[in-house]
């Protein structure tokens, strides 16, 4: 028993653990500052105190996870996954409605968010599914089944609705990419993003049409897109060798029609599905003038808080923007504003750097695995971290839409911290066992 423990401490990746612990400590300092509760930390009544309790709970959880054999996680993957699906369904029925979304189980003054655990469970499930023998990626059945495994929890979360977490599930595309998904899928994704942005930008304005008078500028865009697309397709078609033309024709037409359909869908969604405040948020992000001073209130104040930090910041617990309530949700989704205001460019760049280092380190762990399961799982961890990092910090910097997802290990909140502890605890245990896996 003792020999085994010795081996565990020797094999444990202290770099990853160190980075995580550092982020948690820095995060907690910022929560204390953002809630302006430095004086009530130790009586555990305030948010900073509560977070301290969560940190203790998660430390125990981490030790527990490291003590469990890795094989246990692999074998129980399906059970976790099914359990989480049941919880996600249950929360839609008995969940507490907070901020328009039914995503919480209320337990006393604490709340638990099953979607935070869904990420870990889905990561285990997809790793188990893809690492089993006889499931080569190139068969259509594997692809469809993978899509279902990822789509089920994502769909349930979309019903809550919690767009941010769904977006995180989108990160699994990187896992699939590493396992063999065509790079073209990523390119098409980028292409669709460009089409979507253009659709919203042009659709927000109006245009004067001959015979029809003034109408949404979108129809003009749609016509231009269709005619230009056809022209380009024809030119490419003529320029390729005859034996490749059939393929060009088939894929090009599919892309063009798909793009047009996607654009029309986005336009319809913007006009018919989204509510006014959601539409305004997207417009604000794209720099379209919104006739509502409150529409960009959050992001304006968030940017002012970060920008006012200067090179070295205003010092811990000395940022008036965050201390005096100008930044919304400042201890959770907008926690990075506190970093920006109080620690300045140097501190913010350090935190960004730590996140990048952590994600890159997880990629390194992934590639040193003999076990396919562990490799896929590590990629899932890296992808989830990357999505959180990109969307959260992108949001407060005004580069991504205002979508509420926490900054891992930094934001206040027990479910989030516990979810990421599970994610990393399992990874660390699996990684520590990498030499005991036989090929």
């Amino acid at each position: 028993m003792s020999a085994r423990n010795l081996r565990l401490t020797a094999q444990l990746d202290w770099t990853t653990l160190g980075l995580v612990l550092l982020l948690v400590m820095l995060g907690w300092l910022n929560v204390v500052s953002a809630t302006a509760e430095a004086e009530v930390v130790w009586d555990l009544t305030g948010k900073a105190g509560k977070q301290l309790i969560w940190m203790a709970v998660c430390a125990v959880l981490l030790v527990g996870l490291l003590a469990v054999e890795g094989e246990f996680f692999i074998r129980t993957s399906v059970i976790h996954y099914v359990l989480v699906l049941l919880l996600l369904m249950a929360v839609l029925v008995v969940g507490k409605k907070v901020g328009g979304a039914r995503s919480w189980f209320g337990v006393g003054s604490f709340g638990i968010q099953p979607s935070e655990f869904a990420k870990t469970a889905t990561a285990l499930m997809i790793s188990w599914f893809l690492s089993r023998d006889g499931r080569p990626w190139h068969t259509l059945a594997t692809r469809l089944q993978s899509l279902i495994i990822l789509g089920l929890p994502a769909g349930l979360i979309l019903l809550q609705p919690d767009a941010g977490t769904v977006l995180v599930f989108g990160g699994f595309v990187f896992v699939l990419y590493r396992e063999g998904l065509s790079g073209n899928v990523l390119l098409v994704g980028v292409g669709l993003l460009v089409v979507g942005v253009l659709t919203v930008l042009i659709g927000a304005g109006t245009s004067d049409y001959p015979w029809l008078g003034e109408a949404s500028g979108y129809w003009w865009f749609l016509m231009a897109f269709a005619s230009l697309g056809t022209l380009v397709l024809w030119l490419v078609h003529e320029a390729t060798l005859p034996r490749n033309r059939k393929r060009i024709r088939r894929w090009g037409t599919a892309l063009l029609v798909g793009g047009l359909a996607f654009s029309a869908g986005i336009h319809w969604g913007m006009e018919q599905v989204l509510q006014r405040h959601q539409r305004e948020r997207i417009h604000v992000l794209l720099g379209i003038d919104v006739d509502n001073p409150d529409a960009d209130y959050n992001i304006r104040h968030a940017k002012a808080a970060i920008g006012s930090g200067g090179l070295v910041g205003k010092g811990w617990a000395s940022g008036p923007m965050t201390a005096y309530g100008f930044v919304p949700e400042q201890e959770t989704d907008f926690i990075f504003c506190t970093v920006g205001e109080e620690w300045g460019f140097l501190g913010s760049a350090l935190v960004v750097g730590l996140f990048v280092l952590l994600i890159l380190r997880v990629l390194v762990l992934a590639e040193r695995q003999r076990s396919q399961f562990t490799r896929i799982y590590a990629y899932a961890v890296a992808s989830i971290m990357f999505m959180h990092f990109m969307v959260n910090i992108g949001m407060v910097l005004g580069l991504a839409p205002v979508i509420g997802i926490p900054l891992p290990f930094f934001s206040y909140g027990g479910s989030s911290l516990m979810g990421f502890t599970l994610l990393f605890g399992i990874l660390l245990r699996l990684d520590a066992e990498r030499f005991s896996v036989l090929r």
Partner: protein
Amino acid sequence: MELKSRDLEGRQKILGAMVLGVGLIFILRLFAMQVTTSHWKNKAERLTEEQETLQPARGLCLDRHGELMVTNAPSYDLMVVPRLLGEVDTTSLAGILNLDPDELVTRLNKASRYSRYKASPLVRQLSSREYAQLSLELWKYPGLSIRTRSVRQNVQGLASQIIGEYREADREDLNRDDRYQLGDYLGKSGLEARFEHQLRGTPGVRHHLVDVRNNVRNTLTELDSMPVPGSDLTLTLDAQLQAYAEALLEGKRGAVVALEPSTGEVLAFVSAPSYNGNLLTGTGRGQAYDSLASHPWKPLYNRAVRGTYRPGSIFKMVQGLVALEAGIISPRTTIVCNRDIIGCHGAHTSDDLKHAVVHSCNPYFYEVMRRMLSQHDEQDKFDNARLGMGWWTDRIKRFGFGTDLGGNLPGTRSGLVPDSSYYDNIYGRRHWTFRTIYSISIGEGELLTTPLHMANLAAIVANRGWYIEPHLVRDVGGRGKPEGLGQRREVGISPEHFEPIQDAMQAVIDDPTGTGRRAKLAGIAYCGKTGTVQDGSRADHSVFMAFAPRDNPQIALCVYVENAGAGGEWAAPIASLLIERYLTGTVSQEMRERRILGATYPLDPQFAQLP
């Protein structure tokens, strides 16, 4: 298959590059926001830092003896932060504030447009009593608060027209001087406006950190500065004399200007009807102003410097002085009272200068004026009149007539002394002679003077030939008289020529038949001259100018009572009461005082017969 696997291993580099790329974009973005621009920093400061202006105490106004005339009093503005007030029952709030509900909604909307997060005034200048009542209800409304500010209080309500108004700066003021901000107060008229820069002082500033609800959370002291109080203004007015003069003119229209002849300092300055300037502060300002502006007696019109009247027979003394100096007459020259050419009054046939002044003999001064205008030996009568007129106008203007007397009093009007070109414009060149314009010889016709001009004339006669431009300020902030005040002016008449004039003016009062006999004061030998100025079909204006005592004059003054009758009936007794009060501090003529104080329009002719 092996190849494929290695191919896929390469994909970790692409994913790693993406992570690095995103991190790099974030760091560049952070650098741009935090280091290369102060845009966001300024934005944050605008949100979190609030500058509180510390208004300096405005300089006080004191009278010549140091008695307090204008001081500062606290007043309370009700402020509203629309975001904190939220939805309220405007009807009940309007009831508490004593406002029309529609008006309240209008004001709340205006405040919201200004800022939803910052306080703006909802009701200005509540009195202490209104504030006390309101404070009982205030706790119910989270967005309402009280801002204390300082307003002017005229201690006795004296000299309001000349002290002027102190009120909120309007758009024009803000554009003209960027030291004022919306909501600041400044002197808008009178001395408050003229000495605004000295009275105002320098505002201080205090920097606060506020939270999103605009509560003050912290202070930043390194940039703060303390306000520097404004300079006190010591006026030349004698508050007691001023109060007495205002009381005597109560219920009448007219003016009193009293000067200290040796200094040109204004001792009393009344335009009646006067009003209490304190009415024009606080919530009732608009209403009070409207009622003053629409009053048929025009209380806002400062008759003492802006009221222009024909000088009447008082002007005859000036004519006499100019003629004496030019050698056209001597004190012993007598002229027959020929009433065929111009009407006269009283029993006299042939007067010398002294008696002509005492009797106010019209033919005498008609003849004096004729001689002055025809002293040039031109063949052409038109040229002769033109030359004579030019000569005459120059000399009259040296008495200050037709000028603003240095313009040291706010709003001074020049009046009118006609000259040759003036008559050329009216009658045409070479179309007028002395016979056309003779009425100016007795102070009628086109001549126009203000009560200030007449008081200044009394000072000139008292000083025997010079005056100091009248002014109202003795000292600013202990630095003495402002530069430019106290210019001495010579009128170009030798002192000895004043002897017969002063004799005549003393006789006006001392002679049992003198027109100023009702102004006689036991124990004070002084000089005066009545004037009776026609005003169309209405009763004449009653005018009296005087200085006292004759030796070593202390006070020179002029009293106008509009449409009251002859100068001796009303203006002269009022002047005598003021003189006695100023010189002795007491009033011995109680009957006289009671008659004046009780008199209102229509001034009772029966009553007027009493001594």
